[in-house]
């Protein structure tokens, strides 16, 4: 193959890259709730010696790795229904205690999925009227009360429409809640000015991120790091 035919190096797995980048959001010592779906994959990037307390709202602090069916304890699941393991020092509690922890400021970080995020931090992730209305579960309290709320989502929906918008059109989960968004294209902060680009995925240009974002994207001075 001649040099001029070399294809630019694209990330082999943009989602995997996004998950790995989002995992770096977790600081040692945090109490963290990972939402159902993509956010739970962050666990794979937390080593056995990394000090973190994962919370699941159905009543456990100190959630360990998921288990295959043959090793599962029928009484031990996370809120997404996955069979999980205990780690030394973990605890179990009822649903009232579980959300007391969330509402009273003991949850340092939650990482949630999203249908839409608005430039003012509004989050919609529980209902699409007429199509999807299973109920919000614990999402409202997580989004409204975690000390830090970040979202992990593909930048656009399956039809290619931006999920990051000026305003949410779907029913809100919480208003002004989201502080940072990890996507397959970029890391974006919600600031008083709106969406602000912090990092681009490898092989993704600033122009591509701007094009895929449904609201003005502010660019800080200097180089944009890649992840």
């Amino acid at each position: 193959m001649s040099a001029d035919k070399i294809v630019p190096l694209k990330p082999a797995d943009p989602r995997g890259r996004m998950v790995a980048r989002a995992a770096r959001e977790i600081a040692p010592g945090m109490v963290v709730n990972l939402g159902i779906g993509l956010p739970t994959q962050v666990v794979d990037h937390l080593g056995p010696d990394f000090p973190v307390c994962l919370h699941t709202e159905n009543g456990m602090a100190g959630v360990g790795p998921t288990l295959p069916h043959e090793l599962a304890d029928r009484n031990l699941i996370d809120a997404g229904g996955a069979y999980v393991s205990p780690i030394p020092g973990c605890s179990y509690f009822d649903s009232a205690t579980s959300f007391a922890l969330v509402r009273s400021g003991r949850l340092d970080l939650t990482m949630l999925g999203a249908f839409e995020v608005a430039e003012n931090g509004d989050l919609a992730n529980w209902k699409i009227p007429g199509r999807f209305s299973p109920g919000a579960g614990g999402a409202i309290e997580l989004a409204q009360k975690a000390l830090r709320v970040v979202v992990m989502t593909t930048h656009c929906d399956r039809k290619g429409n931006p999920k990051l918008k000026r305003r949410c059109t779907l029913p809100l989960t919480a208003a002004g809640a989201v502080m940072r968004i990890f996507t397959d294209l970029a890391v974006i902060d919600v600031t008083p000015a709106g969406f602000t680009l912090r990092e681009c995925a490898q092989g993704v240009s600033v122009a591509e991120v701007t094009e895929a974002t449904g609201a003005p994207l502010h660019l800080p001075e200097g180089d944009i790091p890649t992840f």
Partner: protein
Amino acid sequence: MRLSDKTCAMAEAVAAIPDGATVMVGGFGVPGTPFALLAELARQDKRELTLIKNDANETGTGVDLLIASGRVRRLITTHIGLNANAIAAMNEGRIEVEFCAQGILAERVRAGGAGLPALLTDIGMQTELSAGKQIVQVDGRCLMVETALRADVALIHADRADPFGNLAYRATARNFNPPMAMAATTVIAEAEVLLPLGGLAPDEVETPGVFVDHLCPMAEITEEYGVVRR
């Protein structure tokens, strides 16, 4: 002195539940769901029920035995995404569904169990769940009134119990069971293991037997209590 024996056959305990009753049901997914008591409720053909339960189990199990057969009029819940049948029943107007934020459902139940008529919260004030709810001002903050929940009957799943109805739970099978075990006029608990009085150490008791009316030992742990293979 000695503590009374509240052990009771499931059929007998469930027989006293009238049609039209409001029934709290413990459980989050499979863990903590009292499948045996629910099966008995369906077998006895109780109707026009209002259920209060975190979720609607999965199609064909648990509370779906009641929903699919048209025995449920109303469901107060937080998330029914794993039961397509319940979603269809809701969309077709066959059951009325009231959604509640999960921790607020727990707290409304806890208030009911604690003899409090209501609680104040800012949870969900920016969402459609606030529609129609009373707003009050406390210390200059606007807060929403969430009414307490009590039921005619609570169906509880415990791991271990003694004849007085002292209960202990396993792992994430706690969830809504401890608060619901305090919040109903008649509390019926099924237990996987029945210990003699004194067999459950006082320090191990999570739900004091004072709250429990009928203790039903389980004859067997059926398949629906097991690991779900998806």
